[in-house]
C-alpha cells in the first residue's frame, strides 16, 4: 500500500505541477532538438519533434488523471444514487428497472462503445471522458446496491424506520457512510481502468487531440521509431504501468485498511 500510495502521489504531483509549470512548452516544436539523448537540459531527452519528454510525461499525466477522475466522478455521481435507490426498493419495480438497465450497459463491450461515441461525436478528451464515465455508472450502481442490501436488514435501519425516517434519508444517513469504504476502493480500481481506457483511446487517436499531450498518443507516435528510439515508447509505457500499478496497490491496501474484518486478522 505504501508503494501504491507513493507511485500514485508521484504521478499526481507531476500532473499538478504541470498545471503551473513544465520545463518546456509542449506545444512548441523545435525540430533542431529532435531525439536528443538525456542531458541536464532535457533529463529524459526529447522526442522526434524536439519536445522535452519529461514535460510531455508530466502534461500527459494531467490529461490521463483528469479524464479518469471525471469519468470516475460521473460513475459515482450517477451510479451510487441509482444503486442506493435500487437497494432501498429491493425487489420492487425501481430495483428491477435500474438493475436491468445496468445489465444492458454491461452487455456492450465498453471500449467498442467508447470508440463508437468518439467516432460519432468526434475524437476529443471530453468525449473520451463521457464514454469512459458512462461505463463506470453500472459498476458503482452494483457496488452500492450490493453493499447496501445487507445493511438494510440490520436493526439500526429498522430503528431509524421506527423513528419515522424515509428510505431516502436512511440511505444518505445510515447506508452511504457505511459503504463509503467499498466505494473508495472501487473508485481506485475504476480510476486505474480509466487511465488504461484513456491511453487506449488516445493510442488509436480517439482521445485527447494534439497538441494536448497524452500517454496513449505518445505511445502511438513512438511506434514508428520503436527500433531507432525505443525510449520514446518505453517511457510513456512505464508511466502508464506505474500509475495503474500504483492505483491497484493503493486500492488493495485501502480495502484491507478499511475492512474491519481484515484489520482484525492482521492483528
Amino acid at each position, binding site marked *: 500500500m505504501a508503494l501504491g500510495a507513493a507511485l500514485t502521489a508521484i504521478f499526481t504531483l507531476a500532473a499538478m505541477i504541470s498545471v503551473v509549470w513544465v520545463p518546456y512548452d509542449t506545444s512548441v516544436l523545435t525540430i533542431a532538438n529532435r531525439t536528443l539523448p538525456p542531458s541536464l537540459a532535457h533529463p529524459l531527452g526529447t522526442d522526434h519533434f524536439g519536445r522535452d519528454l519529461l514535460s510531455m510525461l508530466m502534461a500527459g499525466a494531467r490529461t490521463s488523471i483528469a479524464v479518469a477522475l471525471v469519468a470516475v466522478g460521473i460513475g459515482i455521481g450517477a451510479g451510487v444514487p441509482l444503486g442506493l435507490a435500487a437497494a432501498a426498493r429491493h425487489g420492487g419495480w425501481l430495483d428491477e428497472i435500474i438493475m436491468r438497465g445496468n445489465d444492458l450497459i454491461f452487455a456492450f463491450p465498453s471500449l467498442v462503445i467508447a470508440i463508437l461515441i468518439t467516432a460519432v461525436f468526434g475524437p476529443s478528451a471530453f468525449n473520451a471522458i463521457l464514454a469512459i464515465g458512462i461505463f463506470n455508472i453500472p459498476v458503482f450502481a452494483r457496488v452500492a446496491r450490493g453493499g447496501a442490501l445487507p445493511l438494510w436488514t440490520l436493526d439500526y435501519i*429498522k*430503528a431509524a424506520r421506527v423513528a419515522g425516517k424515509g428510505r431516502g434519508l436512511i440511505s444518505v444517513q445510515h447506508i452511504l457512510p457505511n459503504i463509503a469504504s467499498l466505494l473508495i476502493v472501487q473508485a481506485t480500481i475504476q480510476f486505474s481502468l480509466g487511465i488504461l481506457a484513456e491511453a487506449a483511446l488516445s493510442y488509436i487517436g480517439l482521445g485527447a487531440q494534439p497538441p494536448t499531450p497524452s500517454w496513449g498518443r505518445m505511445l502511438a507516435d513512438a511506434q514508428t521509431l520503436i527500433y531507432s528510439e525505443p525510449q520514446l515508447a518505453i517511457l510513456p509505457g512505464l508511466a502508464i504501468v506505474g500509475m495503474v500499478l500504483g492505483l491497484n496497490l493503493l486500492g488493495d491496501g485501502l480495502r484491507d485498511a478499511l475492512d474491519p474484518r481484515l484489520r482484525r486478522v492482521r492483528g
Partner: protein
Amino acid sequence: MIELADLSLSIHGMPILRNVDLTVASGEITGLVGESGSGKSMTALAMIGLLPSGATTTGAITLDGRDLTHLRERDWLGIRGTDIGMIFQEPMTALNPVQTIGAQVSETLRLRGTPRPEALRIARDRLDRVGLASIPLDRYPHELSGGQRQRVCIALAIAHRPRLLIADEPTTALDVTTQADILDLLRGLVRDGSDDGMALLLITHDLGVVAGLADHVAVMRHGEIVERGRTETLFRTHAHAYTRDLLSASRPLPRAARTIAPSPVLQATDITRSYGGFRAVADVNLTLNRGECLGLVGESGCGKSTLARALLGLEPVQGGRIDLLGKPGGTAMTRADRAKISVVFQDPYGSFNPRWTVRKLVQEPFHLTGCPRDAEARATDALNQVGLTVGDLDKYPHEFSGGQRQRIAIARALITEPEVLVLDEAVSALDVRVRAQVLALLENLQERLGLAYLFITHDLTVVRAIADRILIMRAGRIVEQGKTAQVFDAPQHDYTRTLIAAAPVIPADWLAA
C-alpha cells in the same frame, strides 16, 4: 481420556487462558460453563488444534497419554474427525449447501480410505443413530429443519466413532423444543454404551442445560476455571461467589403479581399479516394496558416479530385494526403517534450505526417530533435513566459492551417519552448476569415511568421474570393467554405444556439449601 494440564494460551501476547486443568473422562459428559469471552470456546479449539494464528500455548494437552501440544498440522489431520469430533453452534452454516447430507457424512469416512459403498452404508447407519432414519441420504441441507441439520452435524462428528465429542453451544441457535431433543440425543450417544465410551465435552452458557446433562461441571471465567466438581455437588454447594452469581442470575425470580387497571394503550383486533398465501400472523387479538408488561412467547418463525413490525407500523396488515392510545395505529400512525411507541431490538451489535456517536444515536427518534430545544438535556437524562453517564455521549457504539449497548438502545427508545415499548428479544443475546441487570432496569423504568411493555421472547425463564400476563404464539396464532403464574402453573394448551416441559431447568431441590 483427554487431559489439559496447566494450559495457558495467549494470542498475540494477549492472555486468553490461564492455567486451565481439565479432564474429560470417557463415557462421561463434562460441562464447561462460562459467559461470553470466558475462554470456553478457545479451550475447545486448543483441544482440537484449531487455534488462530498468533496463538502460543504452555502446558500440556494429552489424549490417552499422547501429547498433542506440539503436534504439527499434518498429525492433527489424523486426530481431528477420527479421535476428536466437534459440533458447532450454528447448524445453518456448518453444512455445505450444495452437497447432499449423505455425501457430506460419507466424505469424512472416504478421506480415511473407506470405499464408497461402505462409507455410504456407515453414513446411513450414523444418520439412523442420530434419529434421521426417515431422511434419505440424497437430501440437501436446505431441505432440513434447523434441528435436523444439527443432527446431521452430529452424525458427521461421530462418523468415525471418535473418543471425544466436543459440542460448542450445540443448542443455542435452536428452539427450546428442538433443544430438548438434541440434548436427549447427545445424552443417549454417551450413555447407551454403543459408542464404546465416547466422552462428551459440552460447552454452554446455560446452567440449565448442564444441570440436566453433565456428570461433571467446570465453571470458567476470564480464562480460568474457578470451580469444578460433580454436577449435583457443585450446584448444591456452589462454593465460589461467581458460581453463585451465575446461578442466581440464570433463574430470576418470577415477578410479583401486580394488579393492572384495564386502561388499554395498545390494542390489536383480529390482525392478519400475510405474505402471498402464507399467513404469518392470523387473527391475533391483544390488549396492552398502561403500566403493564405483556409477554409474547413463541419459537422462531411463529410470527412474533412480524406482529411486532405490524404494531410498529413498519409493515401493513391485511386485516383487522390496530389502535394506539385511542387512535388508529400501525401504518396509519402520524409522526406524533409514532413517537408514542418505540422499540428495542435483540442484537446489541447491529442496533447502531457504527459511525455515529451515542449523542446522535439516542437523538435519532427526535426526527419524529422535531428536535426540541432541550434535546441535549433530554439525551443526558435518557442516558442517566439507563445507568449511563453524560460522558458516554461522545463515544461510539464499539466502545461499549453488549449490555451497555442494550442500555443505549433503551435510552434511544425512551427519548421521545413513549407510552409503549416493544422489546423484541431485547435480552436474548446477553449473558445471564447482564441479562439480570437489564431486566432489573426494565422493571425499574416501568415502575417509575408507567410504561407499557410488549416483551417478545422465546425464553420462558425471562418472560416469567418480567411479564404480568403472557401470550403463547404458535404458527401465527395466539394459542393461550393468561396471567403469568396461571399459565406456568396450569397451562391449558398442549403446546404450552410442551414448551414448559422442554425448557431446561436446574432441579429445585439442588438449590434449596
